């Protein structure tokens, strides 16, 4: 064994042997090998499926889902974002006060401040 303060690029045979003995499995190696090989077929089947096939199998439903999402999004967006067309009556209806239509049809000349404030409200 070498000085513990020494930096050495080479493996330490004594320490390596002691560690190896400490980590060495106690049972028969063949038992482990048999255990791994018992799972061979399942792993091989997984390995045998080409990656492109896996991607392709994801691809088709992906396209269908994307198209469906686009259609739904378009319909929903149109419904929610497009304002309903306003009728002329609704446009002329007062928000508060007599409103533009009442002022226009009144027999007496209107107060100018009321007319202007009504027009500004309509905007």
């Amino acid at each position: 064994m070498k000085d513990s303060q020494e930096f050495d690029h080479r493996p330490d045979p004594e320490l390596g042997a002691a560690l190896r003995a400490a980590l060495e499995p106690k049972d028969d190696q063949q038992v482990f090998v048999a255990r791994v090989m018992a799972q061979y077929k399942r792993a091989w089947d997984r390995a045998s499926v080409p990656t492109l096939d896996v991607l392709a199998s994801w691809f088709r439903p992906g396209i269908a889902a994307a198209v469906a999402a686009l259609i739904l999004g378009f319909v929903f967006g149109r419904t929610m974002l497009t304002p309903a067309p306003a009728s002329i009556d609704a446009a002329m209806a007062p928000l508060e006060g007599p409103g533009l239509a009442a002022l226009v049809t009144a027999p007496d000349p209107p107060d100018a401040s009321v007319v202007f404030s009504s027009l500004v409200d309509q905007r």
Partner: protein
Amino acid sequence: MFAEREGGGGGAGEAGGAGGPQPPPGAARMGSSEEDKGLVAKTLAGDRDAFGTLVERYAAQARRVARAVLGDPDDADDAAQDGFLSALVKLAQYDTHRPFGPWLMRIVANAATDRRRRRSVRQAEPLDPSLVGGGPRPDAVAMRNELGARLRTALGELSERRRTAVVLFDVEGYSHAEIAGILGIPEGTVRSEVFHARRRLRTLLADWKEQAR
């Protein structure tokens, strides 16, 4: 988890002094690189026995590395098995220009790390109290068992990366560059990790030898 990049550093040489790097006893190279590549090619062609040979070659090494990460031997075997099967699934991705051992060990180490993270409670291997106190040692086997238990405990006190690095270097014989590829860390960090791990383990080993006299 350790790095997922392919290849294990390619077995770059080390500036190992006059004699260059020396393989430790029973070092990692379970078979020649060319033999491994041939077995990989046969496995990819569907040869079950070829894969079996690869498992036989690397089983001991994979189990030791997994045990270095996990501590518990049963968990380690589960992780090593996961590693072999995962390697089979990913075998088509293996770059045959690089050595097979580091590639496989990276997968095994990752499998062990995954398993360790999944464990809700860390199950440190309990140390027999009679061993800690340096009790009677009836024979050489008991002494070796005692040393093994102490080393496993000491390994368990190191960080996962540090203990994996020292096991890969001193037990399995991988170069710093290869370990850097396996663990996904810079080569200088590997050197540092190995240095610190050795300092702790060598102290323990020296104390034990002193007591054994």
